[in-house]
């Protein structure tokens, strides 16, 4: 399941909603991305996430389907927020659940890596030096590429 929303989410409640009563599950892995208060030596007051409505949902669906094709997952969830977020705010939640932990760990890491390079989001930081668009990191491309060969 995927969701794109402005509102915050409750990590525990979201995990419960996709896993409660699913007794074939042996392990649940979750990743929560949050806004940092500094980047490149500058203080970050807030960041505004812009996205491409329609394409975002399509890409998140595709990314989730790809994870479920590669690993045997019993449940998965991606929630990505947009709008203005201050340091400490949750940005993204990725949950993967499987009968064994290895699939859940690997699929969660795969999803986070692919979100970085495939999900059409852009971040405008409010820094002490003025507003600044976050640039894509070459390291994110490398992290996503390591999954291609597998």
């Amino acid at each position, binding site marked *: 399941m995927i969701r794109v929303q402005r509102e915050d989410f409750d990590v525990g409640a979201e995990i419960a909603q996709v896993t409660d009563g699913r007794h074939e599950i042996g392990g649940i892995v979750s990743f929560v*991305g949050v806004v940092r208060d500094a980047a490149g030596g500058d203080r970050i007051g807030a960041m505004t996430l*812009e996205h*491409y409505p*329609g*394409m975002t949902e*399509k*890409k998140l669906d595709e990314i989730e389907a790809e994870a479920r094709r590669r690993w045997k997952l019993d449940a998965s969830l991606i929630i*990505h927020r947009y709008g203005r977020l201050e340091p400490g705010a949750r*940005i*993204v939640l990725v949950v993967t659940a499987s009968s064994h932990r290895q699939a859940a760990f690997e699929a969660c890491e795969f999803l*986070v890596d692919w*979100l*970085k*390079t*495939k*999900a*059409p*989001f*852009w*971040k*405008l930081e409010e820094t002490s030096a003025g507003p600044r*668009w*976050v*640039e*894509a990191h070459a390291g*994110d491309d490398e992290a996503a590429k390591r999954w291609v060969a597998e």
Partner: protein
Amino acid sequence: MKLLYFAWLRAKIGTSEEMVELPAEVTTVGNLLEWLKRRGPRFADALSDASVVRVAVNQDYVPWDHPVRAGDEVALFPPVTGG
């Protein structure tokens, strides 16, 4: 054709979306970018470095040689930074 712009491309071009009539010679994404660059200084500036421009046609990432047609939704944006 519906054109969409995001992030600093939107800011530099000064609009988030517009409808355009394509000239007959514009048949690929590459042609489209060249044609857009000639529409004025804001476009020329925003699209001056093609290595930081990504294109989606009908909400899928495409390379420069991908065809474009009148009814397409084409989006131009910088490399994405999700997660």
